[in-house]
């Protein structure tokens, strides 16, 4: 059976990422940044990638990556989720990288692995691994069309664009018109991408590349959701031990203790499901079912955790200055990203032989 624990190396990786985020990704700064013209934290991205080499975890060493696996990338995503860090890790170092691995484009892979180039798959964030995706037209060798809901496109240097001829094309970001969309989750902003005769380089077939990328995304998103849920639980428990009403700590009321214990239970389950998905992506064993199980379970847990965190913080949880809203918005957006829980359950129904009536 799958290895569901964290290795010593994975624990060390987590500690290093957490240290960096503790020092350079405080919640107040993230909130301020969401109101600026530059919602992404490029300095943090540089530390994570050029400093620690984390953009290349999924890329083989001979192509300039770390030759690690989805297990390590999952640990990084747990920590990024815990900090709602505004960096394009999932979109560039996982999704775009997986698409390039499917196409075998060594040069671009090396560039993405270094972190100096940021890639984005031009498929709407809501798209699950089994769903249809948008494609642009190919006319006279150039690309035409508009794509919406592209996460982290604002910081991308290269877009990977599916076209109606069945190909996946690499398009330079300065060859397209990019319009930011006002997003629910300001830490992972969306944009529309307009192509009007943009030149593209054909990387390979879009179908298998997009499916592979979105499956990895759905599986590893569970680890990000685990990080979100873990923060919500930990921070709420901490606050309720401190906050006093009726001359006693609010955390001593049994009605609240039971809700937090229930949340702990869900988080424990989510950890096992997220580890199973990361391990299944790394080994290739039973991957489709395990990823669908993890994503069908993860989304409601992360949302529940963030919603409980808000409610149990009381009035302060409703304010812009308290970070709980960042987690609520991330959790809710994540529940749509790469396929809803319902979409993943439908996919499972076919895969495990539990067909609809």
């Amino acid at each position: 059976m799958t290895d569901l624990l964290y290795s010593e190396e994975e624990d060390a990786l987590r500690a290093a990422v957490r240290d960096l985020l503790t020092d350079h990704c405080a919640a107040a700064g993230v909130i301020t940044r969401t109101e600026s013209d530059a919602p992404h934290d490029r300095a943090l991205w540089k530390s994570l990638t050029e400093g620690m080499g984390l953009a290349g975890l999924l890329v083989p060493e001979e192509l300039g990556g770390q030759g690690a696996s989805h297990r390590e990338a999952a640990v990084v995503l747990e920590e990024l989720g815990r900090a709602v860090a505004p960096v394009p890790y999932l979109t560039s170092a996982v999704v775009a990288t997986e698409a390039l691995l499917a196409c075998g484009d060594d040069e671009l892979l090396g560039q993405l692995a270094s972190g100096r180039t940021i890639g984005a798959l031009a498929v709407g964030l809501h798209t699950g691994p089994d769903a249809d995706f948008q494609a642009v037209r190919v006319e006279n060798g150039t690309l035409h069309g508009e794509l919406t809901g592209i996460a982290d496109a604002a910081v991308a240097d290269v877009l990977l664009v599916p076209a109606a001829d069945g190909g996946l094309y690499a398009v330079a970001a300065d060859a397209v018109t990019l319009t930011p969309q006002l997003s629910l989750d300001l830490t992972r902003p969306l944009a529309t991408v307009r192509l009007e005769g943009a030149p593209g380089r054909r990387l390979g077939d879009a179908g298998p590349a997009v499916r592979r990328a979105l499956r990895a995304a759905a599986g590893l998103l569970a680890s990000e959701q685990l990080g979100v849920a873990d923060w919500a639980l930990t921070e709420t428990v901490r606050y309720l031990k401190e906050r006093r009403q009726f001359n006693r700590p609010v955390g001593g009321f049994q009605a609240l203790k039971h809700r937090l214990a229930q949340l702990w239970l869900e988080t424990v389950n989510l950890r096992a499901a997220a580890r199973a998905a990361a391990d299944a992506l790394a080994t290739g064993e039973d991957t489709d079912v395990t990823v669908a199980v993890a994503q069908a379970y993860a989304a409601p847990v992360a949302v529940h955790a963030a919603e409980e965190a808000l409610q149990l913080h009381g009035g302060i949880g409703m304010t812009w200055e308290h970070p709980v809203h960042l987690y609520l918005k991330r959790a809710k957006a994540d529940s749509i990203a790469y396929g809803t829980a319902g979409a993943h359950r439908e996919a499972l129904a076919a895969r495990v032989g539990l067909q609809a009536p």
Partner: protein
Amino acid sequence: MTDAEELRSRTRDLLAAHPPATTDRLEFLRARFDAGLAWVHYPQGLGGLGAPRSLQGVVDAELEAAGAPDNDPRRIGIGLGMAAPTILKYGTEEQKRRFLRPLWTGEEVWCQLFSEPGAGSDLAALGTRAVREGGGDGGGAWVVNGQKVWTSSAHVARWAILIARTDPDVPKHRGITYFVCDMTDPGVEVRPLRQITGEAEFNEVFLTGVRIPDTRRLGEVGDGWRVAQTTLNNERVAIGGMALPREGGMIGPVAKAWRERPALRTHELHQRLLKLWVEAEVARFTGERLRQQLVAGQPGPEGAGMKLAFARLNQEISGLEVELLGEEGLLYDDWTMRRPELVDFTGRDAGYRYLRSKGNSIEGGTSEVLLNIVAERVLGLPAEPRTDKDVAWKDLAR
């Protein structure tokens, strides 16, 4: 000193000296115990070799491959899972030598005399009294009077682990002592307790003037609550920690019915089935992760959650199953009053599973108490107010 290779070699020696095909079952089990291959993490001379617990699998695999008989662990679960670890930790050398071998071979079945009609979740409030015969301080015997309840296997048990009040003048946790009770004593009366499924898995046990020699006390006088924690911690691990293949639990029969009988399917049931299927699969991962932590020697607090999760899942899944069956769900397979030795979730119909699983959130600690335990011991939230903490047991309101 003992590695996997050495265990394999000792197991082969055992098999060579006592070929399973021509050896009496009990004789083989006794020989296995004496060879230290019963539970390898137990000490030498007590069925083990002081080896790491994780190496038991090496022995079990060799024996299974050779077609050797096992000790039917499901039938003697209370002895193996609860009595044995407590005897090992708190028993005298003489007690360990007397009890562990026939416990492990299954020659002597054990039951547990803890809960009482007036002491359920608040077990430490128990009122069964043990009084020293003649009122002396050392040696001699104790005389026990009281009533215990929810005792599975009492009607087949030779021995019981028993907690009773020996000092009513101190607060409830401090006046309890732990004993081994002989179930064949004339003062022990066992009556079946019929439950909502129709059968009587449990018993009521009435103790009237039962005489227990002081040599059958486990641990110090007044230290029974601490001794009982060893027993109870092992119970929760046993209830929550079973290894399962995919669809190995209650979801199995529902998934089978769904696949084989398309006429029963509705859209609403489909949504519920898929949700529960996912939750069952995730609970299986959580159980597997817990086992991997134990093997790696890093036990986490996750065990406390497993029982909670399985109780709710079993109830929801079996409830769905009854509903899925429609007209058939209105029927029940057997209301006959029986006294089964085992709980059999898969050998009975959906209605039985639905009714029996209601007990999962009560037995071995209610879900409400377990949520308190998680909140206080895992999350560190403030404890419930304890108004009885410094009050002598005899002065508590009853």
